[in-house]
Structure formats: C-alpha cells, structure tokens
C-alpha cells in the first residue's frame, strides 16, 4: 500500500510551549491507526497538522508525496481536492456546530465542496438516518445533549465520505450506545481503502478501532505496535499515564498492580506486598 501521509521529523509549538518534538510517522492507505496518549501528549496537534490546519515549524508533512505548506493549501484546486479526501472530527463538538439546524450542519461540508444540490438533500437525509439523527434534523445544534452534538459532528464529516478520516476523541462524552455506534462504524471500515486515524486515551476501544497503535508522550512517539502488544505492556501504559497503580485487598492479602478500565486481570500470580 502507498503512503498517504509522511510525517518527517516534525516539531510544533504553541508560543514556545512544545507540542510535537521531531515526530516522524508514515500512514498507509487503508490503515486504521490509534494515537494513544494522555492529555497533552500532542495527539490533537498531530491531527490538525495532518489536516493542514497547522503547519510544522520544523520538518515536513507530505500527502501523497506533496508537501503540505500554507502556500500549497492556498491553491484552490489542491485545497478542494484535499478537503474532499481528508476530514477531521474535532474533540469539542461545539466548535464544529455553527449552523442553525442539524440538517444545515450536515449539509455544510457538501455545500462548501460544491456538490449538486439535487444529490445533497438525499445524502443528508441518509446520513442523518444512519446516525439515528433524523428526528433531530430541524433542531438547533446548541440545544442538543453532549452525545447528540458529538454524533452530529461525526455525521457532518461522514457525509463527505473522505478517504482519510481523522478522529479526535470520537467516543468522549458519548453514552455506551452511541459509543458502540462509533466503534462499529470504524470497525466496518476494516479492510477497506479508508484510512482512519483516531486519537484517544480510551484503552477499551483500541483493539476494535485500530490495526496499529502509536503511543505518544510529551509530543514524541513512546512506542508503536499492534493493539495486542501495546495493551499487554503494562509498564509502557504506566509510563504513558494511560494506566495507574491500583492498590486493593483480597481478604488479608493487599497488593497493587497496573490497572486500566475495561479489561480484566489475573490475580493468581500476584505477590503479597
């Protein structure tokens, strides 16, 4: 498979505060990657750089071999093609919902990308229906619950059917049913040509949404591997602040071990403290 993105030795900072440090990553077409890291590890910054919203202060990012620069993205024909192919779902749905109704919100992207209007209404209806949002079509986004807002934000990007989907904490704020809807969506893209990069710190969904996991800490890669290998490495998860030492007792036996939510662990081999 061809490299869609090539992140080459990229550094980025927010007014002197480093967010990414000499970061390198190759993303291939059809890959499902989870960027795993605690808050402030640089996941959201990386997604914005991949979406050509931020540009690195050092290093380069290439999309199908073409470097993403401010000058390049100002070129209308390149920009239109890039925005059709790459889409980002923001962590905070409020920043993504600025239209008067849910219907208008989902129609916004296609309108900007100049889809034919005859097609557009049908597509919006279909997308709303697939995300169980049809009953909210005429509601104002700011009146929705947190979970509903997130689903609308997702729908507003999914309608574009992009080749590359960048998801920033897509299951945060969602109730279990909506969470499984999102996970099912990402799962169904397995084996397709769609590339999905998901930033998350929810370990329990990683095996379902990714074939490769990149663990980030302090703006750099701490480790990379299959979900199984990464999740089995308790020390790594502790170092990346993705698990914590849990101390508890079984009768008179007190012990501690790395703990993360959503998974079971074996008590037989634990030593007494």
């Amino acid at each position, binding site marked *: 498979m061809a490299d869609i993105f090539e992140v080459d030795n990229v550094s980025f900072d927010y007014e002197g505060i480093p967010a990414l440090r000499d970061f390198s990553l190759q993303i291939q077409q059809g890959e499902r990657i989870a960027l795993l890291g605690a808050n402030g590890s640089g996941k959201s910054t990386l997604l*914005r750089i991949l*979406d050509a*919203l931020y540009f690195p202060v050092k290093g380069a990012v290439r999309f199908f071999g073409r470097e993403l620069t401010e000058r390049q993205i100002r070129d*209308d024909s390149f*920009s*239109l093609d890039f*925005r*059709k192919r790459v*889409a*980002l779902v*923001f962590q*905070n749905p*409020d*920043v*993504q919902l*600025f*239209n*008067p*109704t849910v219907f*208008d919100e989902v*129609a*916004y*992207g296609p*309108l*900007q*990308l*100049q889809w034919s*209007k005859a097609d*557009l*209404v049908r597509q919006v209806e279909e997308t709303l229906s697939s995300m169980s949002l049809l009953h909210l079509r005429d509601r*104002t986004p*700011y*009146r929705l619950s947190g979970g509903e807002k997130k689903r609308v934000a997702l729908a*507003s*990007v999914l309608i*574009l059917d992009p080749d590359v989907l960048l998801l920033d904490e897509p299951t945060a704020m969602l109730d279990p049913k909506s969470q499984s809807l999102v996970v099912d969506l990402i799962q169904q893209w397995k084996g397709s040509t769609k590339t999905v990069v998901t930033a998350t710190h929810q370990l329990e969904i990683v095996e379902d949404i990714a074939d490769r996991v990149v663990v980030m800490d302090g703006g750099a890669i701490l480790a990379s591997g299959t979900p199984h290998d990464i999740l089995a490495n308790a020390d790594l998860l502790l170092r990346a602040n993705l698990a914590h030492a849990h101390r508890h007792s079984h009768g008179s036996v007190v012990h501690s071990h790395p703990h993360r939510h959503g998974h079971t662990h074996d008590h037989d081999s634990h030593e007494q403290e």
Partner: protein
Amino acid sequence: MAAARGLFLSRPSFIGKTILGFTRGLSEALVSEKFARRSGFLQSLDPRVRLVGVLALVIAAVACRKLQGVAALFLVASFIALLSSLDLWSLAKRVWIAVLIFTGLIALPAVFITPGAVLWTSPALGISISAPGVYSAAILILRVETAATLTATLVLCTPWIQILKALRSLSLPAEVVTMLTMTHRYLFLLMETAKQMFESRESRAVGVLSGPDRRRMVGQTAGVLFSKSMELSQDVYLSMVSRGFHGDVYLLHECRLASRDYAVLLLFLATGFVAVWMGR
C-alpha cells in the same frame, strides 16, 4: 428556566440573579424559534418580502408626521402580529411595556417644555402641560411602539438563518452574513459558558459577596470568557476550513418569489406610502 428559578427559592444572590439572567436570555431564543415554526401570515411569505415589507412600514412610521397616520400603522403592525400567530399579551410583555417606559422617560420633558396651549397647570409646582407637548410625546411613543412591534414580529416569526439569507440576497456582502451567523451562534455558546461559570461559583460560594468582591468576580469572569472566546473563534474557523470553507458562502435553498409574495410586497409598500402621504 423553571429549574433555574427553583435553585433560588429564597432571595437570589448576586450570582443567582446572573444565572437567571443568562437562562432567561437562552429561553427567549427558544421561544422565538417556537413562534417561527408556527403557521401564520409572515411565516408564509418569502423572507425577502418580510424583510423589505417590514422595513418599508418602519420607514413609513418614522416619516409619518400625523398621529392618526402613525396610529393607523400601529394598528396594521398589531394586526400583522395577530395574523402571524403572536398573541398581543406576549407582545405587550416583550415590547410595548418596555418601549412605553423607556420612550416615555425620553419624551416626558417635551410635555412640559414645548410651548403652546396649556392643558393643565400644577398649582403646587407651577409647571404646565402643553397640548403640543402631549401631541409630540404621543407621536414619538407611538412611532417607537410601531417600529418595535414590526421588528419584533419579524424577528419572532423568522428563523435567524432566513433573515441572513434575505440580507444576503439583498446584496449584503458574504463576509458580513458569515460574521452575523457566527455571532448569533457563539453568542449562545458564550452565554451558556458564562452561565456554567457562574453556576460553578455559586456551588462553591458561601454567604453574600461584598460589592468589591462582586466587581472582582465579574471582571475575572469577563477576562476568562474573553480568552475562551478567542480560542473558540479560532477553533470554529479551523473547523470551517477543514470542511472546505474558503471565504464564499453557499446556501442550500435559494429563495424564489411566488406571485402571492409580489402581491403582499405591493400591499406593504402601498400601505407605507398611503400612511406617509396622509401624514404629510
């Protein structure tokens, strides 16, 4: 709204009053959406006809120099409100009483200082009320009441996006329309954020805040809100860019005028013209 009121069954604190204010603001917005969804006269018209027609009547109310003419326009405005499924009591609460108080205060001196035939003199204070003074105060109040009734009816019966679309189709620059759209959207988001900030303070506050403390708190809250709004506006812009925004505005439904719209527009313009002509 009811829930927020329930929080402050006893005498509301300064923070409590602020939260109630924000909640009222949000509720008002929801009420106007409710009116806009009802079926009625204005709601059935093309938004451009509503905007131009109402604007014509407002100009006529301002240009008309006779009380009878302005009174006739006020009756027309109230009739339009009734036909558009607004009840007069809610209009009185929202518009008429407030306008009467504020414009009344502005017009009050004219009652005493305008020269002309004296209607009544206060023996104790020695000041007189003149007939021309009462006339000019009445015409000013009625003018403002008419203009406010018309604009309130337009805003209550028209979703904000339709007003924006109408403004755009009347050649208002795309940048201005985009700015108004964002302002409307983020006004509510910031109001909600401010409400949550005050709620969080209320949940941790004990006793009554002193004057300086209140001022300090409002200052701090305004500062934090400003920082948040800067961050939000940048993120909103990025999310628009991410979905293909590059300066132009594309609308889904283009407005189309029907023959009924033309007829009503003519009626609006004719009414305004007749009122101005009669009130020369």
